[in-house]
């Protein structure tokens, strides 16, 4: 458990907290980009111990939350109507589509399988040559290399029954979109450590410069998060706007070059629809033309009516940090993890579910 226990050391955490307290002189709003960071902030009770001047805004970095409704409908359609073996990451299966979630499709007889790795889906395709196998390739830059690799792997094996349904989203264009949004008020970003371990942080340098905003690449353990917050606060107090790397044990400026090569071979960028937020230019990865045979979107004829989001869900405002989950009139009442109105209440990384599942007195603390 090296690198975990050390970064959960309560004595060190208390020291960093003290330093944050002694550095801060005025209120600041800091957005953690990644849902994994939101989960950790709430799970470890960090929001209950931070100085009151700090408001943490929970960003859009939850892949489950931003996957468009119509794509979930497509996955359900493929599983139920086209009778494919639909493989998915675990937390995607409970997200409600406009009619059903994948879990409900499974209960209705669809062959839905939960996997850790898309390479496992390629194995399933190999073992079931008479069935179509579709992997629901969802995620940020982090899952890109393994999703891309699964396509290359299937190609190498000569499989014709494997394809992926992609919903890949990218962080830097989302940061730009947030900064251009007049409603969003963000003083600093904690960039997502896992995303940067693949992509590096060179893409963030021009963003910090353009928007005059500190960006700190941050990990996921309590000490990581506190050190990330401390670095952001120090910059803010001094009026700086640099890119800093708190997660240096995982992240290099250039990222994982080999992984990027695989991604670049298979994917190209394009405009991407983010659930609750809207279309962000250049914020998605799509399979290149030469891999059309592995693109479930083009391989299958999918006839679906356009579905509408639940009007009562304010997921967009939540993911842009404009509103807190408990400021939503539906939070914890008509919208709970058992009966979610929108995706942020489903994934354990979604801000609403994180607050619902773990928070205690956050409402009282932050509202006073």
């Amino acid at each position, binding site marked *: 458990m090296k690198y975990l226990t050390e970064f959960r050391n309560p004595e060190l955490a208390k020291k960093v907290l003290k330093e944050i307290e002694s550095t801060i002189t005025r209120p600041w709003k800091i957005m953690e980009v990644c849902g994994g960071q939101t989960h950790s902030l709430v799970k470890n009770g960090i929001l209950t111990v931070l100085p009151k001047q700090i408001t943490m805004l929970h960003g859009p970095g939850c892949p489950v939350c931003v996957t468009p409704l119509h794509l979930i409908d497509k996955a359900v359609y493929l599983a139920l109507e086209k009778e494919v073996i639909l493989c998915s990451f675990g937390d995607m299966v409970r997200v409600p589509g406009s009619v059903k979630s994948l879990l409900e499709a499974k209960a209705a007889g669809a062959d839905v399988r939960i996997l850790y790795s898309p390479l496992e889906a390629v194995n399933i395709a190999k073992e079931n040559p008479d069935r179509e196998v579709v992997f629901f390739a969802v995620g940020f830059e982090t899952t890109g290399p393994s999703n891309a690799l699964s396509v290359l792997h299937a190609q190498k094996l000569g499989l014709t029954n494997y394809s992926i349904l992609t919903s890949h989203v990218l962080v830097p264009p989302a940061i730009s979109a947030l900064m251009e949004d007049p409603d969003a008020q963000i003083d600093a970003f904690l960039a997502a450590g896992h995303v940067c371990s693949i992509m590096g942080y060179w893409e963030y340098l021009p963003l910090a410069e353009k928007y005059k905003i500190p960006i700190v690449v941050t990990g996921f353990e309590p000490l990581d998060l506190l050190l990330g917050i401390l670095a952001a606060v120090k910059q803010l107090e001094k009026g700086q706007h640099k890119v800093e790397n708190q997660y240096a044990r995982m992240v290099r400026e250039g990222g994982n070059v080999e992984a990027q090569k695989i991604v670049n071979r298979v994917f190209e960028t394009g405009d991407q629809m983010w659930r609750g937020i809207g279309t962000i230019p250049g914020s998605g990865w799509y399979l290149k033309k030469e891999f059309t045979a592995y693109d479930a979107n083009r391989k299958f004829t999918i006839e679906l009516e356009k579905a509408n989001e639940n009007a009562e869900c304010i997921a967009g405002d939540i993911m842009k940090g404009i509103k807190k989950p408990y400021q939503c009139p539906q939070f914890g009442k008509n919208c709970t993890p058992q009966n979610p109105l929108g995706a942020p209440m489903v994934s354990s990384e979604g801000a609403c579910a994180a607050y619902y599942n773990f928070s*205690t007195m956050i409402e009282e603390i932050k509202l006073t």
Partner: protein
Amino acid sequence: MKNNKSLFKLQCPAPKFDFDIITLSHGSGGLLTNQLLESGVFDLLKNEKLDKHHDGAMLEFNGSVAFSTDSFVISPIVFPGGDIGELAVNGTVNDVAMCGAIPQYLSLSFILEEGLPISRFWDILVSIKYAADKARVIIVTGDTKVVDKGKGDKIFINTSGLGAVHPKAAIDIDNICAGDKIIASNSIATHGIAILSVREGLEFESDIESDTCNLNHLTTALLDAFGNGIHLFRDPTRGGVAATLNEISKERNLGILLQNENIPVEGQVKAACEILGLDPLYAANEGVFMAFVAADIADKVVEILHQFEESSKAAIIGEVTEEHNGKVLITNQMGGTRVVHIPVGEQLPRIC
């Protein structure tokens, strides 16, 4: 303990059956049902109550009796550290033990799927016998049904159990009060993670074995020593510690405060949870119980539990509070606090 189990299995070789797989006729009540039972099952589970071959068992009790039932439908039916047979005995034995009773008699009902190899059925029967002997219970009545292929999943088992309540026991959720200490009898989450490690599509290599075991000797030892100082026993099976403690706090409208660093979790289990993005508090247990005890005896309870192999990691993990009624809270050493909610469904692995 593992060696004892292997040795026991070697001592129970499968008898010679005239068939290799279970067919619908084995559940018809006719000749084949008879053959299945007579050529092995009755011999293996032999005891004077069962030997009567009545439709039911006639039993004698003085005083209060605890009664419980449970069905077992797990997949895979064999998992690291055990199988569905052991689970079916231990599960019901433990439910009776959690009432402060000493389990004595079990019923045993099978729903078999057509096509189940007899050899697998026999292995499970031997596990049942092993677990029953270890828990000192006897199987006094039972039933076998067979369903069409595809209408079941290899084997489903239902067991019911009876036992006389321990003379010194005063187990009652109403006896819990603020200040009570909560003790976990052993490391948590081991069973849930062991099962997950062999679940199709999610396999990962580990040495984690299910903790399935009978707990009645532990609860009896505690009742012998402390009687009504023990307020409640609960085994946190499905839904894990989080579900069990939430049920209790809501039922009594009392608060529960846990200390994260005191909750025993084995290193490998902890590591697997980290990698898979799971919380040990929500993982299933089959060989752990929670005891709510008077504060002044808590240390001694742990001391006694430490004398047994199955509870060598017992620890005080929290206490009952007057604040936060109906909620389970957990604190960490950093001073942070969070609510431990009741789980919605099965825990699902996260994307990244």
